[in-house]
């Protein structure tokens, strides 16, 4: 790929990226979330068209308009979320995506082909099993077989280990090594340093849509890769006024939580957050942050462990009960959880608070007060909308976000759980929001802040926890020099 650039709505996702891969090579693609890894691979797979640049295969320039063409060119991709039909058998799924499947009795011919094929690779999966009966690792193997059977020379794996157990990861690695020996090429997308060092021959580091560096794995080490990924040495920026922390608000002890796929995502997490304190959780997203926020606010069940607010046990109580204890929440997936898109702005301004005395009286809502509240929120938090009677779906993402933040902050919570509160906001709005968080800290609230933006973490937080694979690698004061290795900790290669 040469000089690839791509932008979405004027925001560059890839800028002038060039790289190559040769047969029998495993190339690692390393970067934080939003660095442009997946966009780049989607261009190669034909899902997106690049704005500039060209793709060459065996020195011949090609234009790939859609995945069918890329499959014909020998490119296969295994997405992070599998593209399999749950109620069909393994065989049927493979037949469905195979290019030479006959119209009648599609599975018969494919079965022969597959049996020959399985002999050369060591996939042992029962072909008659339905997809939903398989583990995540087995489903991934089905995806790989699908790609290889279509004649893929180049296989793209997007975060392949994120859904696997350690044993399954070992099996995946052995399959990849086998493929390499047979001359296939693999592009392996990951943010986990250990895996990259383990599996790949060469690694390409992306940062904010550009190539930050590339190296042969045998010539480099984790520390320099981590620096490349984070983009700089950590700069300490202490402009917060010094405030001594007050009483303990939140305490979490030995918390274990399952993810959506039924695998443990939080493993024995313990920490406390105090009054006048912003406690930051840094890490690449998908390492358990969302689940932690959901467990604390009652949306997700805790398997074991205790969560206490002001020494009162709130583990697995209802979201409303937890809210009434003074916990407000800015969710990570704002559109999914934070708003009811077809309702008016003023309806959305009291979501979660509509049961409070100030907005409701017996069975009725006090719409006059609700509307006044909505107007105040719009003024105080610079929400630009036509009026409070606008449907919330007509607001831009940034304005929706300001409304949600305003709604959650204006209640003067004891504890604010904020997930990526400034993600997607412009510079001015970001500064505005950060000042609001600092204001909360000053007035005695506790803040549990999740962010991928290290600058934000360092600017705001009194203490910083680094999360990797559902565990805290460290909990450090923000002045601690050991935070220089935060990149290593985020990639799971260092624990303090």
């Amino acid at each position, binding site marked *: 790929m040469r000089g690839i650039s791509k932008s979405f709505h004027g925001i560059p996702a890839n800028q002038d990226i060039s790289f190559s891969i040769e047969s029998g090579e495993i190339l690692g693609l390393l970067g934080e979330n939003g660095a442009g890894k997946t966009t780049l691979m989607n261009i190669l797979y034909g899902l997106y068209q690049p704005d500039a640049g060209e793709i060459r295969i065996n020195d011949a320039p090609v234009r790939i308009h859609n995945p069918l063409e890329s499959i014909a060119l020998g490119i296969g991709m295994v997405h992070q979320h599998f593209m399999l039909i749950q109620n069909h058998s393994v065989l049927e799924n493979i037949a469905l995506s195979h290019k030479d499947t006959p119209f009648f009795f599609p599975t018969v011919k494919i079965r022969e082909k597959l049996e020959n094929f399985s002999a050369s690779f060591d996939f042992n999966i029962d072909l008659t099993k339905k997809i939903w009966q398989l583990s995540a690792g087995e489903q991934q193997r089905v995806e790989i077989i699908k790609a290889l059977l279509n004649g893929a020379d180049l296989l793209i794996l997007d975060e392949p280990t994120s859904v696997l157990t350690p044993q399954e990861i070992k099996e995946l690695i052995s399959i990849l090594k086998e493929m390499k020996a047979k001359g296939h090429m693999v592009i392996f997308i990951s943010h986990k340093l250990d895996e990259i060092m383990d599996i790949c021959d060469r690694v390409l580091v992306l940062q904010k849509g550009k190539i930050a560096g590339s190296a042969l794995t045998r010539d480099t080490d984790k520390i320099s890769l981590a620096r490349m990924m984070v983009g700089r040495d950590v700069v300490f920026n202490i402009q917060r006024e010094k405030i001594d922390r007050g009483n303990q608000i939140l305490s979490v002890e030995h918390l274990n939580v399952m993810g959506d796929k039924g695998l443990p995502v939080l493993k024995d997490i313990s920490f406390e957050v105090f009054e006048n304190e912003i406690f930051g959780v840094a890490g690449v997203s998908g390492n358990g942050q969302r689940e932690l926020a959901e467990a604390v606010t*009652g*949306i997700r069940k805790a398997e074991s462990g205790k969560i206490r607010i002001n020494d009162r046990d709130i583990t697995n109580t209802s*979201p409303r009960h937890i809210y009434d204890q003074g916990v407000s929440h800015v969710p990570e997936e704002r559109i*999914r*959880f934070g708003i009811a898109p077809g309702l008016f702005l003023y309806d959305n301004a009291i*979501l979660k608070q509509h049961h409070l005395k100030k907005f409701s009286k017996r069975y009725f*809502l006090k719409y006059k007060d609700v509307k006044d509240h909505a107007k105040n929120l719009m003024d105080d938090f610079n929400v630009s909308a036509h009026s409070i009677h606008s449907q919330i779906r007509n607001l831009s993402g940034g304005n929706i976000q300001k409304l949600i933040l305003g709604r959650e902050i204006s209640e003067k919570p004891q504890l604010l759980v904020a997930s990526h509160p400034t993600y997607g906001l412009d510079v001015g709005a970001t500064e505005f929001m950060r000042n609001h968080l600092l204001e909360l800290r000053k007035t005695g609230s506790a803040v549990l802040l999740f962010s991928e933006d290290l600058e934000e973490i360092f600017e705001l937080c009194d203490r910083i926890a680094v999360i990797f694979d559902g565990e805290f690698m460290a909990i450090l004061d923000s002045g601690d020099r050991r935070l220089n290795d935060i990149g290593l900790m985020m990639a799971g290669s260092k624990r303090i």
Partner: protein
Amino acid sequence: MIQFSVTDRYDISAGRSFMTNLLSLVAGLFMIGLVFLFLGVNPFYALFKIFSGSFGSFYGFKETLTKAIPLILIGSGLTLAFRAKFWNIGAEGQLLMGAIFASWTSLFLGDHLPSYIMVPLMFLAGFTGGALWGIIPAILKIRFSINEVISTLMLNYICADFLTMLIVGPWKGSTRFGFPGTDNFPDSAILGLIPGSRIHYATFILSILCAVILCIVIYKTRFGYEARVVGENPDAGRYAGIDFLKTTLILMIISGGLAGLAGVGEVAGIHHYLGYPAAVSSGYGFTAIIVAWLAKLNPLLTLVSGIFFAGILVGGDAVQISLGLPAATVGIVNGILLICLIMGDYFLKNKITLTIAKP
């Protein structure tokens, strides 16, 4: 080459919404005209007959109001369910269950109780019957994730067959000469009519009250707010601490219960006995779906759309008599209008631009 591009429309004004609905209706009437043409009838004459039959004479208008009662009752209840995106297609069954419960009270208690106790009791029984039949799919959906469209639809047939079983079996009347159907209700269980019409006034007043009250429920109360949030975004409902089970149960009790009340009106106000399902209700439970939709899910507007569709039902009878068209024609008219209204919604929510590009 002609290219369409579809984009979301953000500014939906009241005027545009009104015009879109009007144009959808006109488009629907145009297609219905084609159907009449195909049947060998002058479409203008047929449409004229439909509307003059229902709105053109005092007698016709009284008939229209009679048929509007169940449509408004059911339709306003459906607006609530549809707002919460609970697709209750089972109002027909809920109506029949209300009729069965009301018939039971009147047949077995009517001889012993005076009218001023009997009538409220019948309404209570009818509401309970409809509500029970409405709760079943709600529980099936929440506890076992069974699609409510399928379950409510199928429960219609179960209820209709159950009713038939009652009237050919245990409840068959001794005065029916062996034909299926219960005996006539005792006098204490018969609803009073507005003199000179078939409008049973208790239900008539009830239907207007329900439309007004539901409007307040949806737009002014906490429950209405929670139902709308759940309908717009169930995940946001969970995040906001709204009890999904409780909300769904309450709204299906209301929606099913109102359909049950409509059933009471039909048996105690018009027929005075429980007969075949098709005789008890001429598909009001299904027509009410269109009524709710045309009212843009605003209960107050079901007063208008309910009367409009009642007019089409009455007009359909008129066409059947004066033009000799099959009775099913009305069904075709209703169906075409609903499809046109739903399609109109698409054009309201999306902006479609057509560009002709040179190849």
